[in-house]
């Protein structure tokens, strides 16, 4: 961005849009299990995700642009997660929070989907069981970095 002598601010639309998107990422309330409690804790005053722009967690997938899959995905819940992901409007990002969402975690059995990336594409994985809220904040930072650098999900529909 540059300031011209006539007090015009010049910038590329892409940059402005990415700045706006990255500083107002609104997550979907996709709390499944123990990681959901740490996700709720990240909204509490000690960790405060609102200062990163995630002021509200939207319950409707139509209004959210970040899905934080926090917790183990059971067989019965997997189609629901996929449907919610499909219902989100582009551009959208996904954080797979915790070991169970990333890879099935400590539950290598009949009931748990071994990683939510088998059903939806994931942008950032957060290790931990459950990850500390700091870990989730770092993941949101990485998402913001990905948005700013023009990763998947720019201002246009993702390629």
């Amino acid at each position, binding site marked *: 961005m540059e300031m011209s002598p006539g007090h015009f601010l010049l910038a590329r639309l892409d940059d402005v849009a990415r700045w706006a998107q990255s500083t107002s990422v609104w997550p979907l*309330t*996709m*709390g*499944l*299990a*123990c990681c*959901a*409690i*740490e996700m*709720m*804790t990240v909204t*509490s*005053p*000690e960790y405060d995700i609102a200062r990163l722009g995630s002021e509200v967690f939207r*319950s409707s997938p139509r209004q959210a642009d970040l899905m934080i899959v926090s*917790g*183990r995905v*059971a*067989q*019965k*819940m997997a189609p*629901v997660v996929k449907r*919610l992901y499909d219902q989100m409007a582009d551009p959208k990002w996904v954080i797979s929070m915790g070991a169970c969402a990333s890879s099935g975690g*400590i*539950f290598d*059995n*009949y*009931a*748990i989907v071994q990683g939510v990336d088998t059903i939806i594409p994931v942008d950032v994985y957060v290790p931990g*069981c*459950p990850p*500390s809220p700091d870990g989730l904040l770092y993941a949101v930072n990485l998402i913001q970095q990905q948005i700013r650098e023009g990763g998947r999900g720019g201002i246009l529909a993702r390629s």
Partner: protein
Amino acid sequence: MTLSATPLTPEIVSRDGNAMVLSMGPQHPSTHGVLQIMLEIDGETVVTAEPEIGYLHTGIEKTAENLFWSQAQTVIERMDYLAPESNGLCYVLGVEKLLGISDRIPPRAQQIRVLIAELTRIASHCVWLGTGGIDLGAISGFFYAFDLRENVLDLQEAAGGARMHPNYMRVGGVNGDLPSGFLPKLDDLLAKLPGRMRELRGLLQANPILQDRTIDVGILSAEEALQWSLTGPALRASGVAYDVRKAFPYSGYDRYEFDVPTRTEGDAYARFLVRLDEIDQSLRILKQVRKDLDTPGPVMIDDTKVAAPPKETIALSMEALIHHFKIVSEGFRVPPGDVYQSVEGPRGELGYYIVSDGGNRPFRVRTRPPSLYNLQALKGIAPGNLIADLVVMIGSLDPVFGEVDR
């Protein structure tokens, strides 16, 4: 509709063909987790509510059958994820009964177990209070409650090593003594707690909006509560003073003085007040435990067949080395038998029916999940009420779905 009108029975609610079936959940801001309720509604009034569970079924009980006795505790701790150490406590108490070492647990280990169990009860009630408040729109209560929870989790992290799921309880005692600097921090929390509870009560207890929304909502009489197998604060709010800590004391609870808050109205407001009173009683127990914790002592049983020997002795003693090797590579064996052990969790009577076939892995760990039975009562109390009341009822029953679905 007047403020304290009794709920309508389904026969009174008209069914003139306007009934609609609505699926509430499994992703919903107010269902406290992955719960789907198939609601048959007539306008805004619920005709029938059929909860559908299983959206978090993890196969924990089957996974535990394939892990060693001490490894199984890690998966079992993830059932009630709001009060993880109470799961661990119940499990190790049951295994200790089967092993026959219940009377050889060092007193300091028992005191630390009571300390951690009460801290985890306070942490769980903080989450209940915060999220229950959000359901009603009292969002600032959430921040107060979670700030309190942070202090409790700091203590749990210092003692056990992790904020949630520290796997701190072990068969034979606890995993390591309290670190230095823990007791002053505990004193700080005990000093902060009464003031914070006063603030929370001031925010919520006499709040006319909260009273409007919770008084006379979801009334359960004592007989109905017993029919639905309710336990914990929901049962005590209906007038039955059953608390496992008093009825079947464990881990030295009979040495501490505390009351069991009971009310008779049986509505959501009564359950709310009972849980707030329980936090006060937990504080009372914590103060008594704090005095006991001044005396040092061992925190793990002296039996190296069950508990790993101290690290310093492994390099010096052949037996210690062999015992350590055996415990790590094949675990310990528990004599055959079955036992039902229960503790008073924040949600009610958490019980495990543990069956051992004499091997080094549990044969069966059947959980008695308090939230499953508490949630089932929703089928009985929902009909005739508004959908908004349904949200209040779920919050007042306080289910956690890791436990309901396992």
